[in-house]
Structure formats: structure tokens, C-alpha cells
């Protein structure tokens, strides 16, 4: 279901935005791109913080902007999380949380304050002032504050970008809980592939103010026609479940639609739904099964497509593993030597699989 329709066209000197997007009304949609790609401007336009004349925006069947309408920001039922937490410095954490909630009519409150507080784990902070909090704590409060307004859509503008790795890892689990426990669609702006891999269900790739691609995460990541300049980060994300734990070797087996993979056992319980990320550079291709290799994960696949990568020495190969797409990055010489071509059955040797959530 496409619940969000956004059409915006902007032309500044040196910057333009030209998008026409249909986005799903559930799950996390990542707006991914480098800085200057227009992803933040698009998010601000959706919030109404940026006025884009001639734009069109419909959210869940309500027109927020068209030729004759421009719903002011404070009348849009949205939550917005900025890159910096931007808590009101003159209000306690509790008052910060209540600020938005008290301005929402009682009838449209779906998320209670307690629920938002519990979800983000900020109960011990309620009576403190914002300047006494760490960056990660502030950002959790900002997210809870936005949730407490019971938004119909949550817009997040690189909420983790201003934080160091440790703080980032402190917040990511809360964002995943949000994803699992609340039925609020999220638009998540990010330039970090690891965040996208962990959180997104739907991916929009932005470049120079344009949306190059928009689609389900796995499919979109596996598209070779996209100049997704991920460089070393090119790769796919698979969804699966923990199907077996091997206590002797500390490994866990993840079953996914196209087969199964062994990953390091990180204490995730049996039956848990997980995501694994496989980088293109970690997949090599063999025409015959290797029995004397150290590589644990070898999948039978069919070559679907071959293209040149950005560097002239490299090629990208799209593989089909039982219906699930994988992308491998190999040298063009290897591709030529193995005579790889679409339709060929090959073995994908996967050197590293990362459990991302």
C-alpha cells in the first residue's frame, strides 16, 4: 500500500530537488544518499518546514499540500527527530515530553507518555534538565517526545549522525523496538549503509536531488543498474530466522528463503527473526564446488546479470540464490577466465556474513 505520495520540485542555484515518490504506509523507509543529495530537503518538505511551491503531498489519504492547500507544520500529525536532539533547554525532560503531547487532542492520543518513556528506556531521566544528559540520552528523549504526539508518520533526519559509535549502538536497539512494536511508518534519512541495513524495509536512493531508485530493501540493494556509489559498502541484506545453534563451534544457522548460512553465535535465541548483511566484496564465485576451502557458507546460485563496476578492474555479478538476490564483486579478469555469463550455475562462496539485527 502506497500511503505517502510526494511530488516536489525545487531549483536553487547549485541545488535542485525533483522527486515523485510513492512510499509505503508501514515500516521504515530509508532515504539514503550522500550529503547534498537532497534527502534532508525532501524530509523537510514533507514536514512542511521547507515550503516548496507547486509541490504535492498526500499522507494516509489526507492532502497536506497541493496547488491550493498548504497545511502548516503544527497542523500536520507528524513526529520529527532532528539530527541534534534540540530539547527545549528551559524545560525538564518530563516537560519536554509533555510539550507535544499536551497539544494533541485527547481523542487522538494513541501513544501514552508511559509507553514512549518505556520504549526508549528514559524513565530515570524524567526529572533532569536537558543539559545534564549525554548526547545519546538526549536523542532518545527527542525520539520519545516525537512519539508522544502519536504521530501518523515519524520523520527522522539522521538521528544518529551526531553521535559516536558507542552512543549509536546504544540507540539502535531502541529504534529496532520502535520498528517492531509500533505501527507508525517511519521516513529515515541516513547516509550510513549499516543503519539502513539494520533498520530499513524500503529504500529510496537519492542523488543530486533525484530519487534514483525506490523499492523494497533487498531488491533495491541487489540492483546493478543503480550507480549506488556505496563503494566498499555495496552488498545485500537478507531476512531469516535462527534455526540451529551449534554450541561446539559457537555458530548459529540462519535459514532464509534461498538457503541457510552459518554466522557467529552472538547469543541470539533460536527462532529469532534476524537480518544478515553480505557485502559484495565478501562473495567470490566458483564454477565447481570447493571441498578443501575454509569458507563455511557456499550457496548454489544462478548468474542473473553482470555489469562493470566503477573501477575498470572490477565487475558486479547478480546471483539468484533460490529466489533471493545476492551481489558479488569480482575482478573482470576472473569473470572472463571463468567465462561467467547470465544463466550459468555457479557456487557463491561467502566469506563473511554479518548479523545486523
Amino acid at each position, binding site marked *: 500500500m502506497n500511503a505517502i505520495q510526494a511530488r516536489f520540485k525545487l531549483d536553487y542555484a547549485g541545488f535542485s530537488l525533483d522527486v515523485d515518490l510513492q512510499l509505503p504506509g508501514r515500516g521504515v523507509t530509508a532515504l539514503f544518499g550522500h550529503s547534498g543529495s537532497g534527502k534532508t530537503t525532501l524530509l523537510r518538505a514533507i514536514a512542511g518546514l521547507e515550503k516548496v511551491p507547486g509541490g504535492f503531498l498526500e499522507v494516509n489519504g489526507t492532502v497536506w499540500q497541493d496547488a491550493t492547500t498548504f497545511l502548516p507544520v503544527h497542523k500536520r500529525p507528524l513526529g520529527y527527530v*532532528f539530527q541534534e536532539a534540540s530539547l527545549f533547554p528551559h524545560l525538564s525532560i518530563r516537560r519536554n515530553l509533555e510539550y507535544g503531547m499536551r497539544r494533541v487532542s485527547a481523542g487522538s492520543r494513541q501513544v501514552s507518555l508511559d509507553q514512549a518513556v518505556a520504549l526508549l528506556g528514559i524513565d530515570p531521566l524524567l526529572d533532569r534538565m536537558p543539559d545534564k544528559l549525554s548526547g545519546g540520552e538526549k536523542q532518545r528523549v527527542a525520539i520519545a517526545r*516525537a512519539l508522544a504526539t502519536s504521530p501518523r508518520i515519524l520523520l527522522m533526519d539522521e538521528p544518529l549522525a551526531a553521535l559516536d559509535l558507542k552512543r549509536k549502538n546504544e540507540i539502535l536497539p531502541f529504534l529496532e523496538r520502535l520498528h517492531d512494536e509500533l505501527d507508525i511508518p517511519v521516513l529515515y534519512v541516513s547516509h550510513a549503509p549499516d543503519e539502513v541495513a539494520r533498520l530499513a524495509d524500503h529504500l529510496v536512493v537519492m542523488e543530486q536531488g533525484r530519487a534514483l531508485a525506490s523499492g523494497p530493501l533487498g531488491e533495491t540493494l541487489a540492483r546493478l543498474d543503480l550507480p549506488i556509489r556505496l563503494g566498499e559498502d555495496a552488498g545485500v541484506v537478507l531476512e531469516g530466522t535462527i534455526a540451529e545453534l551449534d554450541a561446539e563451534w559457537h555458530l548459529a544457522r540462519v535459514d532464509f528463503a534461498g538457503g541457510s548460512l552459518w554466522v557467529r553465535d552472538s547469543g541470539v535465541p533460536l527462532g529469532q527473526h534476524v537480518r544478515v548483511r553480505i557485502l559484495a566484496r565478501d562473495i567470490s564465485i566458483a564454477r565447481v564446488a570447493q571441498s578443501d576451502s575454509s569458507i563455511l557458507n557456499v550457496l548454489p546460485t544462478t548468474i542473473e546479470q553482470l555489469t562493470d563496476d566503477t573501477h575498470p578492474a572490477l565487475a558486479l555479478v547478480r546471483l539468484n540464490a533460490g529466489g533471493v538476490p545476492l551481489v558479488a564483486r569480482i575482478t573482470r579478469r576472473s569473470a572472463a577466465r571463468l567465462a561467467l555469463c547470465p544463466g550459468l550455475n555457479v557456487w557463491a562462496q561467502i566469506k563473511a556474513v554479518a548479523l545486523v539485527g
Partner: protein
Amino acid sequence: MLSDTDWSAIRLTFELASITTLLLLVIGTPIAWWLARTRSAWKGAIGAVVALPIVLPPTVIGFYLLVAMGPNGPVGQLTQSLGLGVLPFTFAGLVVASVFYSLPFVVQPIQNAFEAIGERPLEVAATLRASPFDTFYSVVLPLARPGYLTATVLGFAHTVGEFGVVLMIGGNIPDKTRVVSVQIYDHVEAMEYAQAHWLAAGMVAFSFLILLALYTLNPTGRRT
């Protein structure tokens, strides 16, 4: 020590300063808001007009106000047609003159405070369903409090300290326009140095205390 006319001058001075400050906070807020937020080409010009009293001799301001508010001036014509008579040499005229004279001392601290808040808290408030007016009361005013404290103190103190404008507009009418600074001048003219000392030293002490209070209570609001 202090004579009845001295006390009358002191009372009048505080009345004038209080009314002027109150009016300035009301008038100065929208001006400061506009100056802090506008991208209009007029920003520089309006800002300069507001700041003029800082550099102009008070007699110049007094002179033009006198001309404007006099029987043949545009303001004078207006007040006469409204049945208010003319403003020069009345307490009301003194208030109007003081408002012009002390305007920059109120507008500039508030404007600085508004500018320091920046755009972000306003955007945050809007995404939390606060209308622009709601945002102004619930976010802007509390965050600009140091600026308002500075503006109040400076506006008040500066009005208490005016002399030239008062003399031009108000003249020297006991109980109506004779404020402390004029009273001191009279004492000195009359060679009543002891009387002048009491009032003058009182002004020094008052000004020092008020600024001391400002700088201790409000260390961030020092800039004007």
C-alpha cells in the same frame, strides 16, 4: 536633606521610567522580532533608525520631536484633531520622547536574545503542534528571558538618566515634567551644591546597584 520638590522629582522620574519601560517592552518586542527574523532589504535601514538615539545628541531628538509634536507639526495636528491638545511640556509628551530616546536600549538586547535562539527551537515547537503564537509564549519568551531582563534594566536606567530630551520636550515644570536630572541642574544653577550632591550621589548609587544586579543575576545578558 531632600526637599519636597526633590521628592516630587524623584517620584516623577520613577513614574516616567516605569511607564516608558513598560511601553517599550510592548513596542520593542515586535520590532526586535522583525529585526531578528526578517530577510528583508529594509532590515539594515530600520535597524539603523532604531539605533539612532545611541549616537545622536539628545537635543537633536528633542528638537525634532518638539517640531513634530508642536501645534504645527504632523503629530501635533493629529493630537489636536483628536482633542488631546499638544504634547510638548506635558508628562505624556515626556513619555513619548522617552520611548524614542530609550528604544535601542530595549530593542537591541531583545533582538540579540531572539537571534541567539535561532530557527531550530521554533521548528521543533512546530513539529510538536505548537502554533506560532503558542511557540512565542512557550519557547521564545522563556528562552529570551535574559534579554528581557537586560532590556528592562537598561530601558529603565537610561530613561532615568535622560536630560537633554526632557529639557527640550518637557521643560521644567514642577510635578509635571521636572525629573531628577533637571532638578539637579536647577540646584547647581542656584548654587545649592549640598542639595545637588544628595540627588547626584543618589543617582550614582542607584545606577550602580541596578547594573550590579543585572550583571550578577544575568551574566549571559551583558551585551546590549
